[in-house]
């Protein structure tokens, strides 16, 4: 998948967390989420559409996000996703978990030096 060549595969749970984070500011359509993550990460992270939409549908099914059809500023119909209360809680939990994990990974990496 060309868009992904330089940035490495993203772990599913991490992607979920990033999507929730992206939506925590304002409702957004799928394309917007891709762009937002791309910009935030200083273009280090490119979200593959092949993972994005399955993740969106999964998060919606889990009740963490909701969707509705709106019109964009360019007057096009698009499906917008927004964070639910449960999604907000989930984001907080995942962030805590992530911090622990990254601390753990950091420890592991340091030990190997």
């Amino acid at each position: 998948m060309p868009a992904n060549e330089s940035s490495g595969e993203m772990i599913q749970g991490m992607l979920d967390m990033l999507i929730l984070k992206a939506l925590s500011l304002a409702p957004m359509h799928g394309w917007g989420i891709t762009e937002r993550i791309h910009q935030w990460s200083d273009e280090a992270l490119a979200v593959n559409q092949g993972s994005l939409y399955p993740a969106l549908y999964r998060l919606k099914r889990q009740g963490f996000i909701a969707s509705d059809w709106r019109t964009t500023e360019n007057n096009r119909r698009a499906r917008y996703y927004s964070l639910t209360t449960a999604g907000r809680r989930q984001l907080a939990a995942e962030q805590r978990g992530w911090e622990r994990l990254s601390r753990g990974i950091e420890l592991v990496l340091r030990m190997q030096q």
Partner: protein
Amino acid sequence: MTRPRNRWRHLLGELRRLAGTMTADAEERAMREEMRFHLDMHAAKLRDQGMSDDESRRRAALAFGGSQWVDAARDEYRSRPLEESLRDARFVVRSLGRAPAFTGTVLLTLAIGIGAAAAIFTVVNDVVVRPLPYGHPEQLASVSHDLTKVSLHDAGIAPAMYLTYRRSARMLREITLYRTGSVDASDADGRGDSQLLASASVSGNFMSLFEVPAARGRALSVADDQRGAPLVVVISDALWRTRFGADPNVIGKKLLADGELGEIVGVMPASFRVPTARTQLWLPLRLDTAAAWLGGFNSRAYARLANNVSTAAVQRDLSSVLPRTAEAYPLIAPGLTTKVILEQANAVPTVKWLRDDLVADVAPTLWIVAAAAGLVLLVMGANVANLMLVRAESRQRELAVRAALGASRGRLILHFLTESLILAVPAWGLAFGVAALAVRMLVHSSPIEIPRLAEVRVDWVTVLFIIVTSVLVAVACAFAPAARWFRGGVFAGLRESGRAATAGRGRVRTRSVLVTVQMALALVALVASGLLLKSFERLRAVKPGFDPDGVATLWVVAPEKRYPRQVDYVRFLTELANRVRALPGVTAGGISTSLPLHWLNHNKDPLFVEGTATSKAIPPLQIYSAADAGYFRAMRIPLVAGKLFDPAETQRWNEVVVSQATAKDMFGDSTGATVIGKRFQNLPNGPMYTVVGVVGGVRDTSLMMPPVRAVYEPAVVTGDTIEGSLGHTIAVVARTRGDVAAAERAIRGVVHDLDPTVPTFEARSMAEVVRASTARLAFVLVILGAAAGVTLLLGIVGLYGVIAFVVSLRTRELGLRIALGATPRAVAAMVSRGGLALSAAGALGGTVVAAIVSRFLRAFLFEVTPMDPVTLAVAILVLTASALAASWIPARRAARLDPARALRVD
């Protein structure tokens, strides 16, 4: 994460998704629109960067990738729990494949544990639980009597009682009388080999009472049972197949049965197994209801009870009509009134459900075997749970990461469950194989006689048992790691992998509990097998009153048609005994109507010491049998006083030898010296016998029971006027210096030379007879011993696992201790103490459980109390020693830790 509201929301989501499947097309359109939007936006962006219209579209489409992820997205959209599980399952199968040792161990453990349990379950179910294959089996019962005053249990029924019940009992729909025995059968023309058949003489209503029609021809009828009716017989399916080669024209053929010509009128189906599974021939009893006396408890009865009555109620009903027997049939035996028997012996009717009656002997054995199988299953389950825990431990980081990345708690539980269920499914097949094999082995070569064993089948009930059991085990095994996991918190795995010195307490706890349970169960199995082992040893130390080694035995039947006169018969036997004694290597030989510890021919009769014989009091019963002097010599039954019998030609018929127990109980002299010359009768106005000798006591009925009172009558040639004390079935015994089996063959040759028409059967060494009498105990001992071995082994392995795990968790702490000056000895002791603590807890729990369950072993125990302190102490010692051995390896490893390296370990 599972707050109610969230769960509610999740449920709503599920419902919506469910509704979504109905509007799948609309959703599909929406999805495509969304994708198109995405594509357009990407193309627009590229265009803004200066790309041409066509080029930007092409690049955007290229970036979007193929259509396969659209399918993935669609799957996600529509995904159902089942599909999720399947995805999980694929993952689990892959990861199990990468751990073949773990997978193999668990599969094998499950297969053996569940398979063995399923085999025993099948046998117990088919033998004890499943209804009998007769019409309305819930109404069928056996009727017998306990003669409580003379301590005679299950004494059967006298024909006079049967007739009374048939006439007067209100709660019996029907009652039928039967006698088992053997019939010497040969072809109608008298040619061909005669054959000894297991027979049942039955009332005419016998087969209709069981509501079983004949498979061919007809069953016996009431008309066949009339006095003077021509003899007709019904044969078993097995006899039809063996003797008659499944001849379809067997009906109407004639058979010489004990010299009387009888017509075969029917063949019973193979499922008809009353009164015994061995019965080959049924003939009408043709009871003479007008006979002068209808006594003798050598008959038995089955009854069909009225609807919805309890056996206790029927017993009360029978008790209330029993006294009428004395009115209708005042004399039950010559010189003995019915009233005396009923009152003095205190005959009490006992009614048992037929199913219980059939399996009464073997049911305790089967339940104990079932308990052993259950025990092994429990311990194996604990072991598998432990293995799953170990596996979860080794993957804790993977699981923690999955949890951290958003896998829900339910999803993780589902994962554990999927894993154990995936292990359980192939275990079904293996377990079924194990069960089928075990049942086959048991049915074909059971060391003990189990009624209804031929009915035992591995069928869908077995399969159902295996599936239900394995699913239960799987769920329980999944629960262990899942519970451990969530008590510790989802991220415990991450935390515990940190550098805390006292990490892992939570992880150890679940496994410690499992190991303690294993140790407790191992102790129970150890105690149970220890008790049986001790009983078995005590039993082997018992002196049976004879010397079984080097003694060959063989039964012969002298057909009445060839030996109608007692004189000819005894001459035949005398000649037989003489020729046996003359065989090379035979040092002593003789004949007897009964053998110790053998089921045949144990007649019981009263004994009235001279001067006490009145029809008013019944004395206790004795075993009466007949033998010659050679029998005592061959069996090495010692002569205590007086003399043995003379040769049959000169021996007087009214001289007898009595056992020491008879001498002591009936004549008050165990030395026997003063008993010689004493006289007695076996009926109040019967003939008078004189005691000429006293022999040592013999454990006739069971090695567990003390020697019983016995009277030995002589074999005499001149006694053709005497009511036959010698039956036509006789045991030949010979003591040989050489090979016992060779001696048996030689005796058979002697019989054949003497009279080729005389059938022989049951050639066994006396040592075998003794062994057979303890076969049931030996069987239970072997089963419980195996259960004890397996549970102890699994317990030790589990204990070793926990201690080794604790050592690995505490490596840093132990290293620190060593660095601070703890001696290796102290460290090893500290680690071992952990193992000892677990085994002590197990021993404590096990002692409590053993105290409760060992009572059920009572029927098998001999000279050992269920709470034998020595056995308990030895069992605890074995358990503790095993625990020490199991802790020793990790303890030694801990003691040899290099502190510098230990402190660096993560």
